[in-house]
């Protein structure tokens, strides 16, 4: 057996062990909890709901809807007088933007248009952390409730804090604790790996 065949067999054994350990034990839940940020929900000056994407035809993807609903819930409970809805249009459909779809739904949910701010141009979390604070600066907002996926929260909180805001985490889910089936745990492991890589990339690129 050649050197490379031995390497590939070793990777195969490692992959199978990883599959069983990550899928059938709580290792991925522990890793998820290490990456996630604990919620701290208090009164602030604005609720910022980060983008997650649109399906073709203008429907919010599941993750976008989950974040939006969390933002609406916080607004309705009176945690802030202002809600910022983020999200650009799809690359293949210039309208509507995710922010506009969310704004229309927010109005249906009873949030006055005057309490809604939209950010419709940012492509990435880093761009959102530049453009949303610029919008909020005009209204003298310094303290926000940030709404995003639990695993995306650490990186998002760091870039928004770097932009000069005081950020309280309001995650839209609790995947690190709620993932119990093997499929959910494998997915959670993938998200932890992706988010850890993204944090490393943000550090190398000088965004953090």
């Amino acid at each position: 057996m050649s050197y490379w065949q031995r390497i590939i067999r070793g990777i195969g054994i490692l992959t199978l062990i990883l599959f069983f350990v990550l899928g059938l034990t709580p290792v991925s839940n522990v890793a998820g909890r290490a990456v996630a940020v604990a919620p701290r929900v208090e009164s602030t000056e604005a609720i910022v709901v980060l983008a997650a994407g649109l399906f073709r035809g203008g429907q919010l993807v599941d993750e976008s809807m989950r974040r939006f609903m969390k933002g609406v819930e916080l607004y309705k409970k009176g945690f802030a007088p202002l809600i910022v809805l983020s999200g650009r249009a799809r690359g293949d459909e210039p309208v509507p933007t995710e922010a506009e779809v969310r704004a229309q739904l927010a109005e249906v949910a009873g949030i006055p248009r005057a309490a809604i701010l939209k950010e419709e141009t940012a492509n990435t979390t880093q761009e959102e952390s530049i453009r949303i604070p610029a919008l909020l600066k005009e209204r003298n907002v310094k303290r926000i409730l940030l709404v995003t996926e639990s695993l995306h929260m650490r990186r998002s909180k760091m870039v928004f804090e770097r932009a000069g805001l005081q950020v309280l985490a309001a995650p839209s889910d609790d995947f690190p604790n709620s993932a119990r089936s093997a499929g959910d745990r494998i997915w959670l492991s993938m998200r932890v790996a992706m988010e850890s890589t993204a944090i490393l990339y943000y550090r190398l690129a000088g965004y953090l």
Partner: protein
Amino acid sequence: MTEVFVLLLVTITTAIAYWATRRTHSARSPSVRAAIRALVDFVGASAVFFIFNVAVGVTVILLIRTFTQLFIPLYGLASLVLAVLSAAQGFVFHQWWRHD
């Protein structure tokens, strides 16, 4: 609980298939070990292709973002299709390397 059921199910169907194969093909233990080794090699080759695909994909996307106005999200690489195609690449190249 679902996982225990799934593992039990796979164990039972494996045992049935093993028993049926021994009866009809006079399969010997060394052949089973060789088949398991082939599975491990296939998984290894697929994992290598998956990592290779993701690495090349990230590089290409970052180059496109840097040198053009186009925006392609990196999240597109977390795709089931990529995992399945990587497995197909792993299978084909593993077979090729085995017979070379």
